[in-house]
C-alpha cells in the first residue's frame, strides 16, 4: 500500500516537473564547484534540467534557451543532508501509551506548513530525516523528506518512507515512568522500564517476539511485522545511544541478531571508536558539542569530547553530522565548521553533512553530491563553506530556487 503511494507520488511528480522543465534549463556558472564525490572543479558549469543535474564539468556548451545563474565568484556545493532534524510535527513526538510502538509512522504526522521546514531550507538543508521521539524503547518509523515549497501534502515531500526504525537505549524511555508505590497503578505511566536494564530487556523481548511471530504468524500484527523486516535487514535500526557501555551493548546485540545498525547521538563514541569501526556501523552525531560544566541537557553522556566526530572519523567510522533532533538545533554548516576547528579533517567534515548522511539514509543515488543524474539540490555560497563569515546566497531544490538572499 505505502510503496504504491510513494510510487504514485513519483508518477505524479514527474509529469509536473517535466512540463515545467522543458521550458527552463538552468545553467550555473560556478567559480568553484565542490562536487564532494570527486575533486573540486574550478570555473565549471552545471546544467540543470527537469530538476536534475544534466551535465557538470568545465567544458560544457550552454544551450541558448537556458537561464543562467552567474556564480563565477562563488562556491557551489550540493544541498546539505540532515540525518537527524527537528521534526516538522506539531505536539508530542512520542506515543506515550506504550513502550513498544513499531507501527508508528512519523510520516503520518508531518505538518507541511511547519515553520521548521521553511527555516531549515534557508540554512541550506535540502534533505532531512525525521524520526519519532526518543521516549519509547521502540519508537516507530522515520522518514526522509525534502522541504519542498509551499504547504503541500506531506506525501509529496517524502522521498523515502519507512527509512529506519527508531530504537532507544539511552535513558529517555525511563523518564516519566513511575513505580506503583503503595497505591495501585492509575494510568499507563506506571510501567516498565524504570531502569537501564529494563530498557534493554524490553528491546530483547520485542526482538524475541518478532522472531516467534516470523515463524508462526497466527494473527496479523503490523507492529511485529515491522520488527520482522528490521530483523531481516529490510529496515535499518536507528539506535540512540550515548554512553560507551551502551554502545558496546548495542554492538553486541547487533551481532547476536545480525541487525543493520545506525548509531544515533553517540556522545561517548570517541571512547570506543575502534570497536564501532570494526563492526562497520555508521554513526549520526547529534549535537556533539556540549560543554561540561554548564547546566546539563542530558542525564547521561556527560563526558563529552569536542572532537568526537574527528576521532570517530579518523578511526574509520562513517560519520554524519546532524542538527540534532531532540535538543537545541544547530545549522549544519556551523556544525561542520566547528568539527574542523576541533580536529576533524576538512574533507570528511564536508562529506559528513552531504554524502555520508545520504549513504546512511540510503538515498545516495539521488542526493549528497553534485553528479550527473542526481537531484539538482545546489547551494551557492559567498565563499569557503567552512568559514563563519560565509553566507548561503541561494538554495536550489529540485532545480528550483527556494531561497535567495539579496
Amino acid at each position, binding site marked *: 500500500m505505502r510503496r504504491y503511494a510513494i510510487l504514485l507520488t513519483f508518477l505524479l511528480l514527474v509529469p509536473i516537473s517535466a512540463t515545467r522543465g522543458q521550458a527552463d534549463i538552468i545553467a550555473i556558472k560556478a567559480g568553484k564547484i565542490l562536487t564532494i564525490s570527486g575533486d573540486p572543479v574550478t570555473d565549471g558549469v552545471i546544467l540543470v534540467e527537469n530538476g536534475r543535474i544534466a551535465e557538470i564539468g568545465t567544458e560544457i556548451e550552454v544551450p541558448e534557451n537556458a537561464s543562467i545563474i552567474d556564480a563565477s565568484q562563488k562556491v557551489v556545493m550540493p544541498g546539505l543532508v540532515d540525518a537527524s532534524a527537528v521534526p516538522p510535527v506539531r505536539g508530542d513526538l512520542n506515543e506515550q501509551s506504550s513502550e513498544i510502538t513499531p507501527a508508528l509512522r512519523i510520516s503520518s504526522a508531518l505538518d507541511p506548513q511547519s*515553520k521548521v521546514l*521553511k*527555516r531549515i531550507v*534557508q540554512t541550506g538543508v535540502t534533505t532531512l530525516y525525521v524520526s519519532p521521539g526518543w521516549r519509547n524503547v521502540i519508537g516507530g518509523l522515520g522518514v526522509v523528506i525534502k522541504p519542498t515549497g*509551499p504547504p503541500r501534502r506531506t506525501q509529496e515531500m517524502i522521498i523515502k518512507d519507512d527509512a529506519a526504525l527508531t530504537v532507544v537505549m539511552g535513558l529517555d524511555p525511563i523518564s516519566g515512568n513511575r513505580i506503583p508505590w503503595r497505591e495501585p497503578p492509575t494510568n499507563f505511566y506506571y510501567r516498565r522500564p524504570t531502569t537501564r536494564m529494563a530498557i534493554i530487556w524490553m528491546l530483547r523481548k520485542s526482538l524475541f517476539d518478532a522472531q516467534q511471530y516470523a515463524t508462526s504468524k497466527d494473527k496479523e500484527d503490523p507492529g511485529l511485522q515491522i520488527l520482522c523486516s528490521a530483523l531481516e535487514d529490510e529496515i535499518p535500526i536507528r539506535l540512540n545511544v550515548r554512553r*560507551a557501555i551502551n554502545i*558496546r551493548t548495542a554492538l*553486541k546485540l547487533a551481532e547476536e541478531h545480525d541487525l543493520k545498525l545506525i548509531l544515533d547521538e553517540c556522545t561517548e563514541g*570517541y*571512547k570506543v*571508536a575502534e570497536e564501532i569501526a570494526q563492526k562497520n556501523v555508521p554513526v549520526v552525531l547529534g*549535537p556533539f*558539542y556540549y*560543554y*561540561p*560544566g*554548564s*547546566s546539563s541537557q542530558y542525564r547521561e553522556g556527560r563526558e*563529552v*569530547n*569536542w*572532537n568526537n566526530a574527528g*576521532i570517530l572519523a579518523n578511526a574509520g567510522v562513517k560519520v554524519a553530522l546532524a542538527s540534532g533532533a531532540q535538543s*537545541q538545533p*544547530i545549522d549544519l554548516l*556551523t*556544525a561542520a*565548521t*566547528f568539527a*574542523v*576547528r*576541533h*580536529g576533524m579533517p576538512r574533507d570528511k567534515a564536508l562529506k559528513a553533512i552531504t554524502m555520508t548522511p545520504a549513504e546512511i539514509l540510503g538515498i545516495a543515488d539521488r542526493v549528497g553530491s553534485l553528479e550527473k543524474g542526481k537531484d539538482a539540490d545546489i547551494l551557492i555560497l559567498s565563499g569557503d563553506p*567552512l*568559514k*563563519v*563569515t*560565509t*553566507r548561503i546566497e541561494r538554495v536550489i531544490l529540485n532545480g528550483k530556487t527556494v531561497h535567495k538572499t539579496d
Partner: protein
Amino acid sequence: MKSRFCTAFTAVLLIVFVMSALGYAGPVRKKLAIQAGKIITIAGADLKNGVILIEDGIIKAVGTDVEIPWDTFVIEAKDKVIMPGFVLAHTSSGLDRANENVPEVPFLSTFDSIDPISSYFEDSLRDGVVAMLVLPGNNTLLGGTGTVVRPHGRTVEAMLIKRYTGLKISLRPTRNTSRMGHMQRFRRYISDLKDYLEEYEQRKADAKEEKKPFDEEIDTRKQPMVDLLDEKLTAFIYCDRAADIPKAIEIHKTHELDTVLVLGSDCYKAVGLIAKSKLPVILPPQLIVWETNEETNEEEMKIIPMIFHKAGVKFAFQTDTSQYGSRYLWYQAATAVKHGMKRTEALKSITLYPAKFIGVDDRLGSIAVGKEATLVFLTGDPLDAQAWVDQVMIAGEIVYEKAKDERLKKLLEKPDEIQVPEDTD
C-alpha cells in the same frame, strides 16, 4: 631622600603584594616588546609585522618601525595575530544565583556573589575575554549593582577591575505582576525615594538652623538609586520586548540617567526609536530571529546586528553559554560580518564599544599608547573559526597559554585506551 626611598620601597612592596594577590607566579618583566605578525589595533589601521612596546603593563609604543631598546624582553609572535582582549559588556553568569526574589534590591552587589572558581571564568579567558561586567539577572525590577572583573584570579578582589559599576533595571514584569503593576512599582519607588531625600534635606536644614551636628547618612539601601539619579551610576535597563523601549527612553529622559539599553530579542522592532534616542545598546545573545511574514506566510530571517548597524546604532555583543556558537564573542562578530556588517565595526563591537559602555575604555578596548597591555594572541584571523586563542596577556603578563591548557587537551584529544574485560560467554 629618605622619603623617596620609602616610597620606592612601598611601591616595590605593593607590586609584590599585588602580584602575589593576582596569584600568578611567573616572572613579570618590566619592559616587553612583542613582535607580531599582525596587529589589529582597533584604534587605527591594522599593522603588518608590527611591534608593541610595553612598560609596567602599559603600552608605550605601537608601530611597524618602533625601535626595541636593548634592555627589553622580546616576545616573538611573528605567526600570530594580536588584538586587544575581548570585552563583555553584560553577563549574569559566574554568579551563585543571578536573581533575588524580592523585586527591589538596588543595594545588592554582584561583588558579593561572584564565584571565582566558576568554570565560566576559566572558559571566558580561554575564549579571549579579558574584562566583563557582571550584573544581576533580568528577573528583578531593581536588581543591584554590577562589578567589572577580569576572568583571572582566585579571589574576587584579585579579579576586580572596577567595583560598583552599573545598576540593573529590568522592565520585564515579575510573576503575578502585570506590566502596568511593574511600571507602577518603579514609579512608586522613585517617588518614595524623592520623598525620603526631601525629608532628609529637611532634617539637614533643621539641624543647621538649630546649629546641631548632623551626622545622619543616607540609607545605604537607597544609596545606589541616589547615585543613579546623580548619574554616578549607569543604568542598564533591560527591555524584554519592543514595547519596553519607549518606557526605557522615557525613564532615561525624565530622570536624566546615564543609560545603556540591554535588549531582548524582540526589541529590534523598535530600532527607529533606539536610533533616535542615541543610547548605547547591548544586543541579545540570539542574533538571528525568525519572523513570519503575515502577508506571504514566509519565514523571514531577521539579523539583529544588521538591523541596528543599518540604523547607525553603536552596540556591544553578548554571549550565551548554552548556545552552540554564540558562546564566543568572535563568533557573534563573525555572524554579523557574514550578513554584511563592516568588519572593523564588528570588531569594535566586541572590544572598544563594550569597554566604553562599562567605563573601562581608558584602559582597555584597543591597542594604543597609554592603554593597558591586555592582549590576545590568535593563531589566525579573529573571525575565522579555525583560529584559536594562543595566549592571553593581562597588563603585560601572560595569564593563559593554550599549550598548557590541560582542560582543552582533555576536550580535544582521544583518551587513553580503556582496558575492556574479555567477554566470556
